[in-house]
């Protein structure tokens, strides 16, 4: 993010480094929105599918089928935007890849396997509804879930390695001459970062999908179909949220011990000290002093290590040489992103608690419009929290691309035309983003206007006869009318 905020030079500056950073940040920021859907939506679809088969639940079946159709679109866009990232490693960071590819590439080789499995089985699942038998069809969906988890753990292994590089031997010229693949993949940061991202994928994916149905319910579509469409993903997200708080807390403490520069930026600590206050918002001014914000005395020290309480010493930014720590602007970015992530995460936790407690005491979800309104923005909040968390880990690592070994400025391409590709990428991605939303909405409208009919009527395959409603459907229509007083 801070990559976009380079100073001076004007828009036509030909220094490739800020443009390369900007393009990478932008394309990653776009791609990461699709990641939770790719990782967790298949799981939620299978929950609905399982319920459909086990309990002969038509609403759940319809939900699973429609979700799989939406997934076809989001997966396709995720696959191609992910491919762009693959190209960008070379196009934007050739010197990084040339030097470190032998180590950094290993997690991606593993990820390639999972991506393969995902692409194959998602095709089987999406296209298999009509002709495969129910249970075999269900099982073609399971590898998608497994591959989504495996792929996440692999990709994050590569990112964790950039924070905590390990498993290689350098010669005097700084070339990688030996590699320990297991140490590369299972580097020290991996368990914490990978679990944090994996839980995030379920949390964000769950809130995102549930928020669509929350909007539908606010518009008066309170039938059983929308209820299920809300309950399945929201329950997944509500379970993931407290887990995420614990995982995130563990990760933060690990960062305190192992990445002190990043931690100093997170906590906005200019000078090494004990009894460090937790500063909410606020920023470093030009002199490197904390200005503004709300200070909670001693809390940052206490949270860093509760066993030593407020006596815990937190290293400040000034403990590190100026060229080996984030700039003041980057520190402010990291700190703000951290506050956004923790703040939104806390709100999502409260929302989950509301849902959970209501479920425990009333055996039902909260029905109030306030809850639904909150739930309908939870998706956006989740995505923002995830973007903020990713900003913390990336900007907090600056100026390094491989911490302690290679700086970003030494890794970037020397190609001065990067600004052109940056502009082209932004234009295409914005068009893509708008189109994805429009396409998904048009699919949703079409599903509704067809009254649940999923058949693609103007595709030359599988025309079908109109069908009279069954007794079960008539009964459901009655229920719908009872629970739903008026539209809108």
């Amino acid at each position, binding site marked *: 993010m801070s990559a976009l905020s380079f100073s001076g030079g004007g828009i036509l500056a030909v220094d490739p480094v800020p443009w390369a950073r900007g393009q990478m940040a932008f394309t990653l920021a776009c791609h990461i929105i699709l990641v939770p859907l790719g990782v967790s939506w298949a799981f939620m679809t299978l929950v609905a599918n399982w319920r459909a088969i086990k309990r002969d639940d038509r609403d759940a079946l*319809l939900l699973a089928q429609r979700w799989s159709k939406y997934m076809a679109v989001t997966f396709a866009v995720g696959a191609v935007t992910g491919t762009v990232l693959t190209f960008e490693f070379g196009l934007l960071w050739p010197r990084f*890849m040339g030097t470190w590819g032998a180590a950094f590439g290993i997690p991606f080789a593993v990820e390639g396997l999972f991506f393969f499995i995902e692409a194959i089985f998602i095709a089987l699942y999406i296209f298999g*509804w009509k*002709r495969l038998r129910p249970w075999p069809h269900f099982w073609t969906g399971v590898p998608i879930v497994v591959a989504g988890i495996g792929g996440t753990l692999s990709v994050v292994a590569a990112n964790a390695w950039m924070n905590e590089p390990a498993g290689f031997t350098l010669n005097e010229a700084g070339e990688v001459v030996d590699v320990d693949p297991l140490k590369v993949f299972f580097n020290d940061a991996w368990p914490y970062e990978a679990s944090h991202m994996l839980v995030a994928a379920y949390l964000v994916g769950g809130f995102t999908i549930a928020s669509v149905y929350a909007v539908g319910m606010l518009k008066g579509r309170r039938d059983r179909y929308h209820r299920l469409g809300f309950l399945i993903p929201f329950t997944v997200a509500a379970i993931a949220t407290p887990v995420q708080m614990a995982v995130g807390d563990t990760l933060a403490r690990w960062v305190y011990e192992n990445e002190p520069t990043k931690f100093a930026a997170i906590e906005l600590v200019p000078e090494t000290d004990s009894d460090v206050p937790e500063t909410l918002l606020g920023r470093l001014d030009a002199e490197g002093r904390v200005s503004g914000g709300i200070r909670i005395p001693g809390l940052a020290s206490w949270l860093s290590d509760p066993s030593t309480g407020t006596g815990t010493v937190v290293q400040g930014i000034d403990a590190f040489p100026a060229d080996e720590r984030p700039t003041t602007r980057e520190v402010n970015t990291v700190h703000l992103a951290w506050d956004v992530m923790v703040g939104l995460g806390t709100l999502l936790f409260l929302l989950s608690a509301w849902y959970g407690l209501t479920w425990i005491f009333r055996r039902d979800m909260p029905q109030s419009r306030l809850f639904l309104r909150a739930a309908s923005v939870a998706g956006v909040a989740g995505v923002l929290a995830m973007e903020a968390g990713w900003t913390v880990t990336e900007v907090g690592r600056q100026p390094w691309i491989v911490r302690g070994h290679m700086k970003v400025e030494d890794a970037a391409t020397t*190609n001065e035309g990067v600004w052109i590709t940056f502009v082209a990428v932004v234009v295409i991605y914005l068009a893509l983003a708008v189109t994805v939303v429009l396409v998904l909405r048009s699919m949703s409208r079409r599903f509704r206007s067809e009254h649940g009919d999923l058949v693609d009527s103007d595709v030359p395959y*599988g025309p079908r006869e109109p*069908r009279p409603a069954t007794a079960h459907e008539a009964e459901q229509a009655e229920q719908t009318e009872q629970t739903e007083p008026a539209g809108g």
Partner: protein
Amino acid sequence: MDDAVAVVLFTAVTAYAVAGGADFGAGFWDLVAGGAARGERPRALVDHAIGPVWEANHVWLIFALVILWTAFPEAFASITLTVFVPLTLVALGIVLRGASFAFRKSLFATSQRRVFGAVFASSSVLVPYGMGAIAGAIASGRVPAGGEAGDPWTSWVNPTSIVGGVLAVTVGAYLAAVYLIGDARRLADGAMVDYFRRRATASAVVAGGVAFVGIFVLHADSSYVFDGLASRALPLVVLSALCGIGSLTLLLRPPSRGARLLAIGAVASVIWAWGVAQWPYILPTGLKVSAAAAPQATLATVLVVFGVAAVVIVPSLALLYALDQRSLLPGEGADPGPVGSVVLDEQTEIA
């Protein structure tokens, strides 16, 4: 061990060419299928044929790139620095192709489908051209060693790159037409069988012609690879020609069964001929495979991953193709009554 990894890399490239290449070729036929009315049936067949498989086929590209940067990082750095322009075009073309294909399938108004169809089809030509041009840049020795940048323009705007680009487009179109004959036959669509048989025959002739002209271009422009093709890779060149002629013969004589395998053979042997011809260089004639190779443990990891892929991915792909070929993956979503006795609910959305 670096030899083995180079073989793995070329296997991935070959798989991408014969699977993903045909998906681009299908886009080519989509592009030249004519207006909305005239092109409706071939476009519907293209949609139907590549819908379930193109993403899985596309992964071979990711796989090849990952192997390249992991096992031969120096070569990857040189390539990305030199052919920055076509690589960028290819990446953006891939985005536009994949996304617009998915959008077109999900939209139903003809005007919308036409826009995304046009983007899908034109990027389906741009991408293979760019890839062929990049292959030409490498083969003609225009990508320097040492993670250095070669000329940003002449590296891929040159005789060998033009031949490579045109060859990639025509070969993809040829493969696609041959595959689409089979898909049309599966759907018992006789008109489309003839439609694509004519196109397969024509594109076989064109691809063969381009390859033939390419030999003279290589002679003038890429002497190292030409010498390789004329000596150690000659058997593969001959094999490719025989497969090509064989598939053409079968195409001319209905029902043309077996043309598909021979077409794959023709394309695969061309790619291997290229690989053998530029051996032992990964970037002729500056960087040898052995010099570019990553440390042994990394190469071993790549081989292990490929072994796992052979055990896990190949059967999965076989399952996908087998179900697809048996028409068990007819389309997204479902007809009524797909889950045993369960039928679709028709009024849940009435609010």
